[in-house]
């Protein structure tokens, strides 16, 4: 499960950069002795899923209190809105005002690894804690434990409004690309919108639900295995892009999607205005509250099945004054008692450790287990942010009729390869 990128260049550059930092005196200057550290900075995103940031802030204070008491250390939690997440990290870390322990998603990590800003956990980890972590291998980059998976969830799924399907004479959710098209035609003929996607969203995150699953379903991949080049400009990539265009041209998806945001799509689905939405398992509560009769499948099937799952992790910063203590904090957060609180009070994701039972009423727990082989996360590679930004812009241009699928993918691949090359 998940995509792990191995790049020798990346490792070499990481080593070189780390050496350069030490030589130039920019490193933290070694660990402080145990007990010398009075506080640790922990940076986390918000909102995860609670109704407000203040609720999440209070929940984190409660979760971390036992660690603070036991270790006699203050854990200063900084909650950063998703929209500013990457900028805040970049400015914070570059001005030596960043976290000691932080939460990162895969596509963020590569650049920080190459530049030596985050370091492996390996030498500080307790083997018993590692044994407890279900997805620990997903945190390995170039064989080293740069990340400890914290959230393995947010699976992208196809939500369907069953009442709208019934009104169109359809009793089951379509499971293949062809079925989806024919059902969408029936829904459209019944006077309803079949599918909405947020191609007007200001940021590229929507690709995780609206393009990458199609790419994987067509048998393609985003980057080459070594992470040095883009791989989406392939037969599979063009098939995925063509399918998107077919959805648009057949009327399954209205042309207004180029102006829609995630919130607008969700609002339309919850309001019963569209039959399908590519969303996440985390929307179950909102969908239940909306009162619509909804069902889901994890993935459509093209050449194969495949969808996105977030695999976000805790990472150890070189700036941490006591890396053992920071690692202890990571292990504490990721242990069963704390994760149970996190999943109960902040967001209902599946367990990530053996010592957490999980919510038996969460219908998605078995879905993750049954579909483990079709779940993909984004590759870790320096410069990948540029790849995704470029791909998003070019696919928007394709949907606006400014480029063919072939042109869009070729241009995106060219720009993406430049970004990857520049970062290495």
């Amino acid at each position, binding site marked *: 499960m998940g995509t792990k990128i191995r790049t020798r260049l990346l490792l070499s550059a990481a080593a070189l*950069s780390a050496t*350069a*930092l030490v030589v*130039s005196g*920019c490193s933290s200057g070694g660990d402080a002795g145990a007990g010398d550290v009075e506080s640790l900075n922990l940076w986390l995103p918000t909102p995860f899923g609670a109704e407000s940031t203040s609720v999440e802030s209070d929940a984190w204070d409660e979760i971390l209190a036992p660690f603070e008491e036991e270790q006699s250390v203050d854990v200063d939690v900084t909650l950063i809105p998703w929209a500013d997440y*990457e*900028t805040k990290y*970049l*400015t914070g*870390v*570059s001005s030596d005002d960043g976290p000691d322990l932080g939460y990162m998603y895969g596509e963020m990590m590569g*650049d*920080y690894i190459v*530049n*030596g*800003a985050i370091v492996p956990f390996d030498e500080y980890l307790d083997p018993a804690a590692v044994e407890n972590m279900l997805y620990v291998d997903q945190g390995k980059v170039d064989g080293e434990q740069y990340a400890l998976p914290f959230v393995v969830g947010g699976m992208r799924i196809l939500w369907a409004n069953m009442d709208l399907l019934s009104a169109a004479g359809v009793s089951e959710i379509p499971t293949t690309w062809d079925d989806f098209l024919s059902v969408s035609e029936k829904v459209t003929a019944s006077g309803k919108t079949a599918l*909405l996607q947020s*191609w*007007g*969203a*200001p*940021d590229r995150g929507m690709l995780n639900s609206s393009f990458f699953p199609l790419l994987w379903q067509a048998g393609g991949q985003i980057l080459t295995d070594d992470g040095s080049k883009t791989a989406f400009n392939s037969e599979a990539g063009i098939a995925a892009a063509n399918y998107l265009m077919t959805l648009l041209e057949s009327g399954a998806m209205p*042309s*207004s*999607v*180029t*102006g*829609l*945001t995630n919130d*607008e799509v969700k*609002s*339309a689905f919850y*309001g019963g*205005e569209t039959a399908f939405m590519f969303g996440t398992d985390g929307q179950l509560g909102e969908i239940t509250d909306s009162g619509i009769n909804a069902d889901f499948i994890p993935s459509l099937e093209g050449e194969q099945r495949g969808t996105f799952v977030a695999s976000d992790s805790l990472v150890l910063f070189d700036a941490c004054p006591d890396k053992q203590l920071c690692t202890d904090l990571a292990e504490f957060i990721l242990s069963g008692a704390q994760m149970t609180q996190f999943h109960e009070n902040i967001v209902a994701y599946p367990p990530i450790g053996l010592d957490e039972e999980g919510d038996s009423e969460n219908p998605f727990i078995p879905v993750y287990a049954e579909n483990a082989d079709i779940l993909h996360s984004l590759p870790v590679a*320096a*410069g990948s*942010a*540029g790849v995704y*930004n470029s791909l*998003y*812009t*070019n696919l*928007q*241009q394709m*949907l*606006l009729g*400014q480029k063919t699928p072939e042109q869009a993918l070729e241009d995106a691949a060219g*720009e993406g390869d430049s*970004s990857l090359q*520049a*970062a290495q």
Partner: protein
Amino acid sequence: MIVPIVMSGYFSLTRYTVLSPPQWVGMDNFIKLINDDAFISSIWITLAYTLISVPLQTVVALVLADLLAKRFRNRFGSFVRASLFIPVMSSLVVVAVVWRALLGTDNGFVNSVLQAIGVDPVNFLGEPTLALVTVSLVTVWKNIGYFLVIYYAGIMEVPSELYEASAIDGANRRQQLWRITVPSLRPVTFLVVILGTIWSFQVFDLVYVMTGGGPGGATRTIVMMIYEAGFRNFQMGYASAMAIVLFGVILVIAVLQRKVMKTSVG
């Protein structure tokens, strides 16, 4: 002020990821810029945005200020001026979020009104040209109050004898505006145009929140490009090169406008 400019100049000649020390690359970033279609496109987009917003906000602010100064020098006029100044005091991010919601294709207030009167919904932020025009118009809405206050203060300084004499000579209000107010306010207009142009070239927050530079890069202005290169793609050296070009462009425009205004006054 000098230090950031010098530092940007230095970084523009380096490969700088922010996370590691800069490496000298000479003019490479500038050579790359010349061949970067996205950057060239962002210059045209910024120019188009400027050409829509600056003339419109200048003319509307002048006409409104003249109207308020001549006809509504009372409580109603004060209320209108205060109301038009509220957007100026509001955070650009808040303005952008509110307008984004108002202009939503599905269930946005503006489209709901349009549909109520039988007009098909308009994809304000999802069509390339329309998105740029829409963002420009929101900018005009945001800036008018500020320039109106400047024009209003300027109009109050124009000697009333000029208007009285012209009225005796039979000039109507339009002729007074065109023959007395506009020429008398040339220095003020110069300030308004210069400020409007510089602000337009620096636009970021509004675009970032309303469209993120989309759809398909249609509203990706120069500063948006700089942000993406520096803070999303870790190419701060390249971003600095763009910033230096932007600085040069603004400098040239300011000098040209000053010359034009001087010639015009002369």
